[in-house]
């Protein structure tokens, strides 16, 4: 198997080395080819173009009274839009960050100047159930009935198995009463 074998030897070792090399590279090439063929079969399961296209939605906030909450559909998931009361905002701001599992001040979860509007994906960060809203749970916010996670008035996880706060999606205020999510 020595490529630098002397010419006085019969040239079988050199031949075998060359054959081994050819077999090895051919097999490697076939392996890479087979792996490349698998990729389309794997990737076809990822979200398709039409699913990706339906990724933003506009909402009119004017009919939502203080203390009310609506659910809208975005990417097939519920989004909670809550018009918070002054008491709820106060509660959310009073919490010490040290008490939080996923520390985030209330100001990071709302848009400046629009503190009364809380917009969150209504999907429990534990295993994807829809939490119940309207001052539920031990912290006056949301409660997930599936496995008992409690969220506060800012949608932050306070108790139960969920690891993260309810997700705040990307959204912008088009004017004072309209937002676009996504």
């Amino acid at each position, binding site marked *: 198997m020595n490529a630098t074998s002397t010419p006085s030897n019969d040239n079988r070792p050199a031949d075998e080395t060359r054959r081994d090399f050819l077999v090895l590279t051919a097999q490697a090439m076939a392996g890479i080819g087979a792996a490349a063929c698998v990729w389309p079969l794997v990737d076809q399961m990822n979200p398709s173009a039409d699913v990706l296209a339906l990724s933003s939605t506009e909402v009119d906030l004017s009919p939502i009274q203080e203390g009310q909450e609506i659910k809208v*559909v975005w990417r097939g998931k519920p989004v909670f839009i809550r018009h918070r009361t002054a008491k709820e905002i106060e509660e959310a701001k009073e919490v010490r960050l040290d008490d939080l599992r996923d520390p985030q001040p209330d100001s990071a979860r709302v848009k400046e100047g629009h503190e009364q509007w809380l917009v969150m994906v209504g999907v429990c960060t534990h295993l994807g*159930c829809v939490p119940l809203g309207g001052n539920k749970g031990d912290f006056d916010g949301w409660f997930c009935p599936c*496995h008992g996670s409690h969220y506060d008035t800012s949608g932050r996880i306070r108790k139960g198995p969920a690891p993260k706060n309810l997700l705040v999606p990307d959204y912008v205020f088009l004017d004072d009463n309209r937002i676009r999510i996504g």
Partner: protein
Amino acid sequence: MSKTNNSESSCCNPVEWFESRFPILSWMEHQKEYPAPRNLNYWWNFGSIAGICLVVQIITGIVLAMHYTPHVSMAFDSVEHIMRDVNYGWLLRYVHANGASMFFLVVYIHIFRGLYYGSYKAPREVLWWLGIVILLLMMATAFMGYVLPWGQMSFWGATVITNLFSAFPVVGEHIVSWLWGGFSVDNPTLNRFFSLHFLLPFVIFAVVFLHLWALHTHGSNNPLGIDAKGSQDKIPFHPYYTIKDYFGFGVFFMLFSYFVFFAPNYLGHPDNYTPANPMVTPPHIVPEWYFLPFYAILRAIPDKLGGVLMMFASILVLFVLPWLDSCKVRSGAFRPTFKWFFALFVLVCIGLGVMGGKSPDGCYGSGADACTYNGQGENITLLTNLFIARGLTAYYFAYFLVILPLLGKYEKTLPLPKSIGEPVLKKKA
């Protein structure tokens, strides 16, 4: 020379002609005469009953697929169409739905039999592994099948179970959206689950074939757990065990028929007769009964990733069981201490099933709402379902990881009989 003679002599007999070209007839003959231990008891019926369950599921499944529509706007209605309009559709669907429960019941008994009689020990480790692979495939198949009627439990069960994968760091979210084909459980999810639900039973069939191949390599274990010494310890499978298996089928189908004809929805959940609604989660999500013990383990761990890992570990630990159990004696009949730990293990598995069906915030024995999320639960933590589930989970893992490795070292086993034939003949006398 002799070969040519053979093919010449078999030229006129069509059976021999065929056999010399494709020896399937002699293979079938081997199956018939396959020597089995003469002392197999009724616990050994459950393997063949599991086989008949698979056949029933495949046959009813194929005909149900002729009437079912895998689309979010039509799936629920097509199942109702099967129930109301298709000739005998109600029967086919109830047989298929209850058949899944029966299949798991039988397979669980089959597994407990293996655990008690040490059927996982050398030289049957690979046979045991193939069985676990079948169990995992069955779980995937049953889960995806339950999604197809597209009721509330279908949808939310699919959401919760696929979200288990989001617990894995970095890649978790990508895996979940890949499984869904979107940003939530939706039409692409339903379509692929239908496709895979159709495919997997045939994969199971193939692994069952391997399971039997491995079984026939060293033959069946038996209630004494000792190796057969010779032909006096064995009897031909046919007619002795074929007839015993048929008797088992008869008894099994009586139970099966009771559920199909008298309590077809007893094992199901009424919420699944409500069409799927992505905006509303039912107040109490529970999987089918056969997943409840694993669901209890998932919820018993306070950490998301930890719970998911423990749930997977509860099955994966079975793969290393042959090396965890240090006792050389196979059968539990000769292990006086093991018997008690095993009995407790069976009760713990049933207990986990009971806990999996209860609200994690509730209190045992005092109704679901007695100490729910209004805070009262904290006063009587000793009695919460969560606390009980944690204790049971601890025993489940301790049985495999602590008790079995230590028992083999400290337990004094009873003397084994000299042969399989000996105690059988003694009993008769």
